[in-house]
């Protein structure tokens, strides 16, 4: 479970924190990725439920899985914080706002879609999400470059070209990354004498 320095908290209060954190971002942000930034802030920096390195690993697992990124991240973070019950609570917190909002919006479509104020507010929040993503990207980059810079930088550049310009299916990229990692581990263990 969590890190040694994590504060003693009752299961109930953990579940409440989980639910509220995930719920509040899911009820406001328009991009699923925003949830990563909020989880990092709330669960790593403020509560030390797990370390920044663990969070980086979870992001990698979530990105290797299909489906809604925010839901998958809630699943894994909830599990880490409070077991399967935590997963359930976090996923509920993640899907409840969109379900309710979309049901309401279906009835008030005309009033909301044409509304200039709603549009301007949501557009402004998207500017904030851009900043959140950059923050998540930078902390991931500093995580992967801890033990050597060349390999991760080359791999990031190749993967970026693959995703952004080639647009080929992501599962092949994930398999490629796994293979690259295994090859590197083998080459590395042969090339360097362990003391």
């Amino acid at each position, binding site marked *: 479970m969590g890190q040694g320095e994590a504060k003693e908290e009752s299961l109930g209060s953990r579940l409440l924190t989980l639910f509220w954190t995930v719920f509040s971002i899911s009820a406001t942000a328009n991009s*699923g990725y925003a949830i990563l*930034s909020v989880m990092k802030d709330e669960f790593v920096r403020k509560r030390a439920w797990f370390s920044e390195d663990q969070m980086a690993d979870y992001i990698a697992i979530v990105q290797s*899985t299909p489906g809604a990124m925010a839901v998958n991240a809630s699943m894994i973070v909830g599990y880490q914080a409070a077991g399967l019950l935590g997963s359930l609570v976090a996923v509920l917190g993640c899907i409840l706002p*969109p379900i309710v909002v979309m*049901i309401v919006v279906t009835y008030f479509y005309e009033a909301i*879609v044409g509304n200039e104020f709603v549009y*301007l507010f949501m557009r402004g929040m998207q500017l904030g999400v851009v*900043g959140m993503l950059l923050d998540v*990207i930078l902390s991931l980059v500093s995580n992967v470059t801890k033990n050597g810079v060349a390999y991760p930088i080359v791999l990031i550049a190749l993967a970026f070209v693959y995703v952004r310009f080639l647009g080929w299916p992501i599962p092949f990229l994930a398999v490629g990354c796994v293979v690259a990692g*295994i090859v590197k581990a083998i080459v590395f263990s042969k090339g360097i004498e362990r003391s």
Partner: protein
Amino acid sequence: MSLLLQTVFAFMRVSVIAFGGAYAAIPLVENEAVAVQGWMTYEQFADLIALDEITPGPIIINSATFVGMRVAGIPGAIAATFGAILIPCALVMLLYSLYDRFKGSAIMDTVMVSLKCMAIALIASTFVRLAMAAFMPEGELPSLVRGCYTIAVMSTGFYLIHKRQISPLPVMLGCGAVNLVVCTLLPAGI
């Protein structure tokens, strides 16, 4: 009942092939709802794209709820969402247990580094697309004032989150409020 089951299965199908973020998912949902199932016309589906711009939440869940709602009302919305999350949640736990079992081994470490590199590329790709969409909402270069304003808000948001470690949620809401006020006050021509 069979319609609800059909909705669950339709979104299961979509969810297992929806890799790489929300924007990859929309064409998949469209294909399933319009072409495969014939639940709605393309014009009706276009409403969803407009809605996604202005509603919160993960886009796959939004799309599932929207389509499910049209198909079978509120039970349809819940069935579609359930279908959309079931397999991915199981897969993520499967991968997590593999990771948990082998973490610390040399091979697992480099595999995780490699997958984190992929995650960076995926997030960076979304970052570029979001930043471009924010900078050029109409698809063309903005006026000097608007361009500078957009960059200023984005950079301030980033500075507050990254350097000042202010919680992202209030920063994001603040950006929304600032944009609402500034764009309402700014004359349309500028």
